């Protein structure tokens, strides 16, 4: 095989090496270093540099280099490079650019976008670059330009993504702040239900998490918990704080709050599914005797069933104008008693499991336990929970 043929084969394999380097999963700088080695190994040069144009700062950054004086490279003017023919290797002596030790210069472009430059020194084998070598360098330069351009596009996209994430987080913050303000307004209307919305949100989210919902769904559940009583804003304070039993008309008026909650929340374009449905039906019962629509069984979503239980549990363990707060054991017993008719077996089972985990310290951030009566005997509650879990887990 002639030397020319061998050289041609070597050049072809160098292009394959270049392709492999460019498409590798290495990080950008490793990729560029591999590309640089391919070039220096193909042309046997002891000096070389790849410069990257930072459009925002109108300056060139040295991505990698070998053999040049850094101060010389820093003096390369982007404007001079922009005046050269795109991706065409040329003798540096025929260009307006001057870098000591450099023989070849390529101004790197992708379409009309200036990307950077490639500089090469003399070959180890001495002698000028052959036309074939310059042609090969032209192909390589095009590939490098595309690689650098892709990196720029990727970085721009990454920056935009990071900015969008930041804005989204800010919006979430504002969203939650607004929700909290709403919940505070709801709870402020009724002196006896302070922080009720907050607790229902925490309990509901804890149950949803234990059920294996994803973080987005849990957040939706949390929001529904916060807003389930938002309709109470439209109910008179006197009625909400009434100490004596309600008349049938007053009860009917109070019961309007879940539909009002729906009417308010349905106007909000939530990023979560079914928030308005959950707040609408949080007073429905499995046996169909709830309100406002007397829905039963399959018509009640898992979210509604969670909210119903969390709301009732907090209502029972909170003081009311017409009764004392119920102790935790009694409230759990009451939930157990109302299974089938009012509450869902699976939801109660999960609620008991969460509470048991919290009592045993198995959850890093308890959602339910901190809000319960601090005088409660946890060992008694634990025994009760164990019994219910055993009963409800039985096939």
């Amino acid at each position, binding site marked *: 095989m002639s030397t020319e043929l*061998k050289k041609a084969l070597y050049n072809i394999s160098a292009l394959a090496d270049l392709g492999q380097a460019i498409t*590798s999963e*290495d990080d950008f700088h490793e990729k560029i270093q591999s590309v640089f080695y*391919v070039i*220096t*190994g193909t042309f*046997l040069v002891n000096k070389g540099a790849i410069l990257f144009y930072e459009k925002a700062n109108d300056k060139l950054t040295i991505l990698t280099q070998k053999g040049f004086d850094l101060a010389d490279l820093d003096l390369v003017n982007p404007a001079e490079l922009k005046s050269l023919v795109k991706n065409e290797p040329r003798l540096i002596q025929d260009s307006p650019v001057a870098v000591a030790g450099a023989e070849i210069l390529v101004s790197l472009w992708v379409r009309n976008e200036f990307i950077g430059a490639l500089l090469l020194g003399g070959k*180890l084998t001495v002698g000028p670059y052959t036309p074939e070598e310059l042609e090969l360098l032209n192909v390589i330069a095009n590939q490098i330009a595309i690689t650098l351009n892709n990196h720029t596009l990727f970085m721009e996209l990454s920056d935009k993504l990071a900015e969008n994430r930041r804005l989204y987080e800010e919006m979430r913050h504002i969203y939650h702040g607004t929700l909290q303000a709403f919940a505070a307004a709801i709870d402020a209307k009724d002196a006896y239900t302070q922080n009720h919305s907050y607790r229902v949100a925490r309990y509901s989210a804890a149950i949803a998490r234990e059920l294996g919902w994803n973080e987005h769904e849990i957040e939706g559940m949390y929001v529904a918990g916060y807003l389930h009583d938002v309709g109470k804003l439209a109910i008179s304070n006197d009625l909400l704080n009434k100490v004596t039993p309600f008349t049938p008309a007053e009860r009917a008026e109070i019961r309007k709050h879940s539909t009002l909650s729906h009417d308010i929340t349905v106007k909000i374009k939530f990023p979560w599914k079914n928030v308005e449905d959950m707040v609408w039906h949080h007073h429905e019962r499995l046996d169909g005797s709830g309100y406002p629509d007397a829905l039963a069984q399959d018509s009640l979503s898992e979210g509604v069933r969670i909210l119903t239980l969390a709301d009732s549990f907090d209502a029972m363990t909170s003081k009311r104008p017409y009764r004392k707060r119920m102790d935790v054991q009694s409230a759990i017993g009451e939930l157990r008693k109302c299974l089938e008719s009012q509450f869902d077996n699976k939801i109660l089972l999960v609620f008991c499991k969460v509470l048991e985990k919290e009592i045993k310290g198995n959850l890093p951030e308890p959602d339910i336990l901190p809000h319960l009566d601090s005088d409660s005997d946890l060992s008694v509650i634990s025994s009760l929970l164990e019994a219910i879990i055993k009963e409800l887990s039985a096939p």
Partner: protein
Amino acid sequence: MKSDQFSVVSRLDGDAAIIYPKGYLNNLSGESLVIECGIYIGKGITKIVVNFGETNLINSIGISLLLQIIEDLRNIKGTICCTNMSKFLKDTFEMLGLMQHMLVFPLESDALKYLQSGEV
């Protein structure tokens, strides 16, 4: 490109360092060859023998790394000897004109004999 495992071991024989690259010299892992030689050069060693007995293939990246070693040794007026080369390696080096920048011996022992002969 990191899939092909390349490794380097070395030993000192008198005032010469013998380097044993192993594997396909075709990616950034080959930088370990330059680093290994650099360590000996840093210690004042000027004679390096690269035994290619377990490196049959090399690509443009490997050539670039080898070029670096040649240059590092040239800067200190050192000597690089390449031994136990496959036909592919020899043909490649010849075609690129690298043979003029290194000493080539069939075996490692031949290179060591030459380096110890005082001709260097």
